């Protein structure tokens, strides 16, 4: 499958300060996004995620390196026809209503009048903003702006969608809705490039990820291959047992009333623990095996980098 987005050896530095000092942000970023996948781009704050994105979108001019979108360079009109972009902390023209705003962008794509109106209505419905259609954007809350932002990114039915920290600032319901939308878009055949540092969401929906630390991509690949299924430890919540008896079996994490949260590392100890509880007529409230998460890998990699 041809790569939808190809970045090779991207370098970018900025001159910062009154006496310009060169600060290198991107120190040779390379990655590749295939068609129809949800690609996660992760990294700590300041690693260069947004800078990479802006280089791809033609907002920033890289010092060195090659970028190809559907085989075209970033600034070409062909490259941009099939792109959609939702920025971090979106802010749009205050004085326009949601409908006017989408109409304005639709005109930039040269959509015909009838198509335009249908499209706007559909998109507003998709992001759940039909009721706010004629409300001025200045009155929108952060979450509402995010939704309208997504609508704007989809106005040209793009094949490649760039989302920069789209889930930040949404309430749990909003995040679930957005995750569902992203998955649905993938099912429609779109490719999605997702920048984020909220690892739980990435873990839930991404197919492949790249991790950028200090301006370099230190890891890239399918999510499944990065995370092993190995169980790290098990968290057991129990009550009715004397803490003294539990010392050999596991590490007490916290106590609330007579409930104890125990961290059990050895798998055998779980069976022993369950036998003990049964014997002493205690109760096990929960038993949660913790597998390696993306967060674990991530923290480890950042620490190493």
């Amino acid at each position: 499958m041809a790569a939808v987005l190809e970045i090779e050896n991207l370098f970018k530095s900025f001159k910062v300060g009154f006496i310009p000092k060169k600060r290198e942000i991107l120190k040779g970023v390379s990655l590749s996004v295939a068609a129809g996948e949800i690609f996660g781009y992760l990294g700590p704050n300041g690693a260069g995620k947004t800078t990479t994105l802006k280089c791809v979108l033609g907002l920033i001019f890289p010092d060195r390196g090659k970028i190809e979108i559907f085989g075209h360079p970033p600034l070409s009109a062909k490259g941009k026809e099939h792109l959609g972009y939702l920025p971090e902390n979106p802010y749009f023209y205050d004085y326009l209503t949601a409908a006017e705003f989408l109409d304005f962008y639709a005109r930039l794509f040269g959509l015909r009048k009838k198509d335009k109106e249908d499209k706007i209505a559909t998109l507003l419905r998709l992001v759940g903003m039909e009721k706010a259609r004629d409300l001025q954007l200045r009155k929108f809350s952060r979450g509402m702006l995010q939704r309208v932002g997504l609508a704007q990114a989809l106005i040209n039915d793009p094949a490649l969608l760039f989302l920069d920290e789209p889930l930040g600032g949404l309430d749990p319901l909003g995040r679930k809705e957005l995750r569902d939308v992203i998955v649905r878009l993938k099912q429609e055949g779109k490719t999605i490039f997702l920048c984020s540092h909220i690892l739980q969401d990435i873990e839930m929906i991404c197919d492949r990820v790249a991790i950028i630390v200090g301006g370099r991509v230190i890891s890239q690949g399918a999510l499944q291959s990065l995370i092993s299924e190995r169980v790290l430890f098990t968290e057991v919540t129990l009550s009715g047992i004397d803490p003294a008896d539990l010392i050999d079996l596991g590490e007490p994490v916290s106590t609330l009333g007579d409930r104890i949260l125990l961290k059990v590392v050895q798998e055998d100890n779980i069976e022993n623990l369950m036998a003990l509880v049964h014997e002493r007529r205690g109760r096990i409230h929960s038993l949660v095996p913790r597998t390696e998460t993306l967060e674990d890998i991530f923290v480890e990699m950042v620490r190493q980098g």
Partner: protein
Amino acid sequence: MKIRAIALNTFKETIRDRILYLLFFFAAIALGISRLLAVLTVGDRVKIIKDVGLASISIFGVLMAILIGTGLVYKEIDKKTINTLLAKPIQRWQFLLGKFFGLVLTLFIMTLAMGLIFLVIVLLHTGKLDSRMLLAILFIFLELVLITAVAILFSCFSTPILSSIFTLSFYLIGHLSWGLETLIQKTRPGTGRMALRGLSAILPDLENFNFKTEIVQGLAIDPRFYLFSALYGLVYTLFILALAVLIFKKRDFI
């Protein structure tokens, strides 16, 4: 087409700007005051009304152009609305031109409104309409177009306050052009003089658009001069816009 979309959007943005209406309000007051001032004079009353009227349209028009124009591009960059815009298939120069034409349209409407009030006041006072007043107002508008281009140029790389100062300086320098002439005549021939001559050629001569005095006094103006001024204005505006496009083209939007 795309420039038109941006222009219309910019027009919607600027026509809702409160500064515009504040300035328009002051302009209307100034036009009203012209009648009061006329009462104080001994002799020709209409001259006072015409002078104050045209000067008001000019001053407030320039203020509108500067105050709104200098924020136009800067706001988009500062508020990052430009990022989503430029991610769409639109060229940077189309964006810039769209902004320019949007503001020009707004200024056109404002000048028309102020001009109408002025002409009505003059009509009430003299009972007749001098078509040359329209010419004076037209050339004031042309000057505003050029000032707008300059404001947008500075807005591409500077904060609104600095841009306002630069654009205002441009306006003031443009009206001091014959101060430079006198300086040239007083300088001894040599490199200094040539440098000054070069400077005077490139610096804007905004007096070219200033027909206020002649028209109020009823003096004749060679029609070729009108044509020349209009052409000068358009060419200079083109020059400034080209500069702006150049600066804007290679800019990183961090």
